[in-house]
Each structure stands twice: as C-alpha cells, then as structure tokens.
C-alpha cells in the first residue's frame, strides 16, 4: 500500500477529529477530538518519513506525542477547575464574559 493510502487514512482521522470537537456539546469530546487530530498529523509525519526517507518524521512524531501528553494534562486541570465552578460540561456554559 503506497503513501497515498496512509495519507487518506490520516485525512479521514483528521476530519473525524474536527467533527468530534465541534459537533458534541461536551468538553470531554473536545479533548478527544484534539487527540484524534494530533494522531492524524503524526500518522502523516511517519508516512512521509517512511516513503521519502530519513528519521526526522518519526522524531517529530515522538516530540508531538510527548507534547500532546503534557497538553492533555494541563487541559484537563483547566477543565476540572472551570467546569467544576460552573457545574456543567457544556462548552457554552462559561459565558460570564459575554455582553
């Protein structure tokens, strides 16, 4: 299966990640959609690294995975704080700064 197959799978995962972030009224889905998007990007990187040569794509993907872990940790801490204050998980609810 050539490069195109992996790129198509990555594109589908990316689009589903965006759908998950946008179309569900739950902040946990936003986090899961972001992880799907990051996975799609990593798959792209590794596919190009394999088919065009070099190890750089895999190292980039390793750094991306590590930083995704750090970002998930901080994002969850913020979610627990903010959405615990409003006692809700809908992303629309913290709207105190709206006019």
């Amino acid at each position, binding site marked *: 299966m050539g490069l195109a197959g992996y790129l198509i799978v990555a594109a589908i995962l990316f689009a589903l990640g965006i759908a998950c972030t946008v179309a569900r009224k739950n902040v946990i889905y936003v986090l899961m959609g972001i992880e799907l998007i990051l996975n799609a990007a990593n798959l792209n990187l590794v596919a190009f690294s394999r088919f065009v040569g070099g190890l750089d794509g895999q190292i980039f993907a390793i750094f991306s995975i590590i930083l995704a872990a750090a970002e998930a940790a901080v994002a*969850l801490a913020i979610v627990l704080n903010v959405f615990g204050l409003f006692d809700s998980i809908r992303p629309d609810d913290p709207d105190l700064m709206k006019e």
Partner: protein
Amino acid sequence: MLSDYAPLLLLLALAAAFVVGNLVISEVLGRPKPGVGKKTVYECGMPIRGTARARFSVHYYLLALLFILFDVEAAFLLPWAAHAEELGKAGLVAMGGFAVVLVVGLLYVMRKKALEWDR
C-alpha cells in the same frame, strides 16, 4: 523486517482465541440458571442505595497527571537506555540533564504534598 512480527501476531491471535473461546464455550455448553439476584448491580451484598455518581477527590486526578508526566520521561529514557554504552559519556550527560530537570519537578510535588491523601 515485518515478518519478525509473526510470533507477536501468533501470540495475539492465541490470546484472543482463548478469551473468545472460553466465553463461547461457557455460553454453549453451560446450562442456563437464571436468578433474580444475578441481573442486579452488585453492592457487596447490600441492597442498592443511591446512584453510582459520588464526589471523587481531586487526588485521583493528581495521581493520573503525575503518572503520565513521568511515563513520558520513561518513554524518553528507553531509546537512551537501549544503547547506553555506545552513546558514551556525552549521552549520559545529556540524559542526566533531562532527568535532573524532572527530578526538580518531583521535588516540587513532594514539597507541595500533592501525593498525600489524608488532608
């Protein structure tokens, strides 16, 4: 190189077959013995009170958070540890710097008593 994974694939297939096989065999060969108590939720033998939703303490989250950040450090230690000798002193210094920065983080966590559950 992909054929090196054949034993791993065999192991996965055997594990899956074992699990599925046991479930199927017990379903097919076992005699059905329905009882009223078997379909209810188990709460240590007591009658059920309230919902499953309880106030969980934030210490569970802190535990998962610290686990993931040090797991990430372990994932970076793996490629160095696999070939530490051929990476030599320079590799040890570089990896040591990385580990020292995260040890500072561990000292912060211990100082802030984030891992103690009694408070």
